[in-house]
């Protein structure tokens, strides 16, 4: 839960021997300013949608009074994945497609941190596709924001798994022929417990989704449309009222716990709906592992680690 970001946990959950970091009590510290959160100047092309996502992440940090040391930003490889360099906080720039397992390693061993992962559509659904499915089904606690631009940006305009049919790229000069992935359907069917859709052209909506995702106890996934002005200009105009498009929020009547209704929403043709499609509370892997640990540790209460190991060795004599 979000409070883990600003409060010192009593005990760091399932890693019994990790003492919680010693930091001053909440009231002694003010929230960070944008200046304090911003690191390197982003290397993105002017006008790239990723700028808005970064700006709204800063807003989130400001608004929710997160501290530097509690922010952990992880990414794979891609234009969007350069994200951690631009945030003044502990950050990881990992390898292409594997940010989720890395982030799971942090999440499962450090319940005092809320881990944020940012990346692109190729990173998430092509090379990292299987990790997406498994991190979602295990419900590892973290927030994953995919900045979907329907193209490979960093490698300069190849077809991505979300490129629509007919998109002319360097690897499909005649137009994309492979059916695209629908990220929302993918997330719902994989078992993600929080699935939302937003677009970089609606800042308030992006922030609202980020906050809701962060507050969700589980694997929270946001597909954020983020235009690549260099290689797929105008891709999302139909969702942008300023470009003559329509921004339809998820209908008020939609039941976010209804998986089939969510799936149906996800089937709407572009521009579709924006908002939370699906949200259910299921025990996280973090909680389940902590439960296993509590039950095994109750059998060895009062013993030092070496004494626990000694019990095994006694049987091996």
């Amino acid at each position, binding site marked *: 839960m979000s409070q883990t970001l600003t409060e010192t946990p009593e005990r760091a959950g*399932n*890693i*019994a*021997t*990790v*003492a919680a*970091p*010693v*930091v001053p009590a909440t009231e002694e510290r003010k929230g960070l300013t944008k200046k304090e959160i911003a*690191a*390197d100047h982003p290397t993105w092309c002017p006008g790239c949608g990723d700028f808005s996502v970064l700006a709204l992440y800063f807003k989130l940090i400001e608004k929710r009074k997160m*501290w*530097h*040391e*509690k922010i952990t930003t*992880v990414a794979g490889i891609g234009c969007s994945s350069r994200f*951690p*360099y631009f945030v*003044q*906080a*502990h*950050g*990881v*720039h*990992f*390898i292409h497609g*594997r940010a989720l*397992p*890395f982030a*799971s*390693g*942090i999440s*499962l*061993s*450090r319940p*005092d*941190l809320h881990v944020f992962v940012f990346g692109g559509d190729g990173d998430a659904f092509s090379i990292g596709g*299987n*990790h997406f*499915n*498994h991190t979602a089904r295990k419900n590892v606690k973290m927030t994953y924001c995919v900045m979907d631009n329907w193209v490979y940006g960093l490698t300069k305009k190849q077809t991505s798994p979300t490129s629509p049919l007919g998109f002319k790229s360097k690897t499909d000069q005649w137009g994309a022929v492979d059916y695209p992935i629908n990220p929302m359907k993918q997330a719902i069917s994989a078992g993600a417990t929080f699935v939302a859709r937003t677009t970089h052209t609606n800042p308030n909506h992006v922030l609202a989704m980020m906050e809701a995702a962060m507050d969700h106890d589980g694997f929270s996934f946001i597909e954020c449309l983020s235009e690549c002005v260099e290689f797929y200009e105008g891709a999302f105009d139909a969702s942008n009222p300023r470009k003559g498009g329509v921004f339809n929020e998820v209908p008020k009547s939609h039941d976010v716990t209804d998986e089939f209704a969510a799936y149906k929403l996800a089937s709407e043709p572009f521009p579709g709906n924006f908002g939370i499609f699906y949200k259910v509370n299921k025990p996280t892997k973090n909680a389940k*592992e902590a439960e*296993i*640990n509590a*039950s*095994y*540790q109750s*059998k*060895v209460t009062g013993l*030092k*680690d*070496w*004494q*626990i*190991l*000694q019990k*095994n*060795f006694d049987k*091996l*004599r």
Partner: protein
Amino acid sequence: MSDSIAAMSSPGGAAKVSSINEVVIRIAGNSQDGIQAIGGFLARLAGRSEQEVMTFMTIPATISGGASIFQVRMGSGEVLSSGDEADVLMAFYQHSYDSHLSSLKKGGIVLFDSDHVVPNEEFKKDYHHLGIPISGLTVEAIGGTAKDKGKNILALGLIAKMFDLNIPKLEKLIGERFTGKDPSILNNALAAFHAGYANPLGNVMETFKFVAAQSKGGHQVVMNGNEALGYGLIAAGVRFGAGYPITPWSDIMELLRRELPKYGGTFVQTEDEIAAISMAIGGSYAGRVAVTGSSGPGISLKTEALGWAVMAEMPLVIVDVQRGGPSTGMPTNIEQSDLNIAINGGHGDSPRVVIAPANVEDCFYMAIEAVNIAKKYSVPVIILTDQGIATRIEAFTEPNLEKVCQDISPDFTPVAEHKPYDLSKPDGITTHLPPGTKINSGKYPIVTGLEHDELGHPTGSPKLHMQMTAKRRKKLQALGASLPVPKIYGPPEGNILLVGWGSTEGPIREAVDRARAAGDSVSSIHIKHVNPLPNGLENIFSGFNHVLVVEMNDEGLYGFGQLGQILRARYCDAKIQGINKTDGLTWKVKEILERAKTNVSAGLRKL
């Protein structure tokens, strides 16, 4: 030596008791017969009797059924290998008899289940045949339904009789093995055991008694290499890991998955090996050295993320329980063919540490060493074991766990400022701060696989790339300079020096003993730190005419094997040659000696 048995037993002679120093027993049957259990009991008994013990096991690649053997060598003196030839063969089936009689020493004893085996008359002159209706006796003792489960324990009773083993100790071991289960299971096991022990062994057999072993002081523990490695990691303070199942690595991940929760730790079964190493690196980044591991193809999958850990300078322990390769290869065979991938696997210049335990005890202590090197040098450390050491059971002096166990909890003390990739440090060693650590300067580090500056921010500067590449190399050169030079087994000068690494130490040392006993000038060294190598090997090599690198891998395109090629490259010394093989079996002592002889045309006896 095991000659003793053959010399002392006489077919048809009156029953008598002879004293022996050691014995090699090979038990051959099918995997579901619980052959490993007999071997395990004998190994554990030897450990409790302060005897040396070494086992060798082949597991069939198929899950159930399939021929399986377990060989145990027990002795009152130092036991270095599981033995070339058996003194006693216990054959449960015709196929066991047919395929393993050749592994029996001439004059040795074959004890077979006469309900299943029809012995070959021709062989009766060479081997003492002793047929006992093991299956029938088991049915008599515990009834038909349980017979397949009890046969092995009855056979254990027969062995106990033959070697006058300590019955109360064995009963206790059987009791421990079957505690907690339905009491009738324990009763059946004991009934079967005593039915075997009560067998008069045809009245034709002399029995044997071990001479008393010298007390070593302190307890012995008995386990296989995979167990020792798993427990070593726990002792080292590892509390997080991730893996994907593959033989023979799976045992370690199963152990960690089962044990870590008691310590508040977690081991995660991931969707594949790439996720496993990525998650383990995430765990390390979170503040405490984590572990991943695999065998064969799983190791290949890990190389991209391994390169990231080298570049980002993240501590990590990777266990590689080698098996026959390439590709799916020979999953249950023994091979040392992963040295190249361990040292060089991946793109780019990516120096990392590789260490190789030589025996089961090493698996325990070197797991701790791996964690400490990873932590101190901020580097991935690969522990190379193999199928042989993973499954073989050995006894070793019980570690003082109170002293050995360590706490490697992360330190979150706030710091004034921090540069993870500080170039001003002469030894080039990086230190990372785990997330959660406050840095008062407000400047936070990024860990990255891109070439970077001192704070981890990307750079395209050729100068920085040169400096950082050198930094990653220098820290391992510093480690190399701190490593102990391996001790020479045998005199420091002579004709032949055998050089080994990994699980082959036992047979190599026994080869040295045997050669020296025959008057040949042979010594050996065993390299446990394979990358970086310790300094000073050239001084050892200079004392010998021939340096023969004994490895269980192919001689390669240039004829020197994987370690051989590295030693030749480093020392530019033409006297370094390879003795290599790829038959998937452990080295036999006589095989090493014969190969050494062929290799050194001038003969062994020079100097």
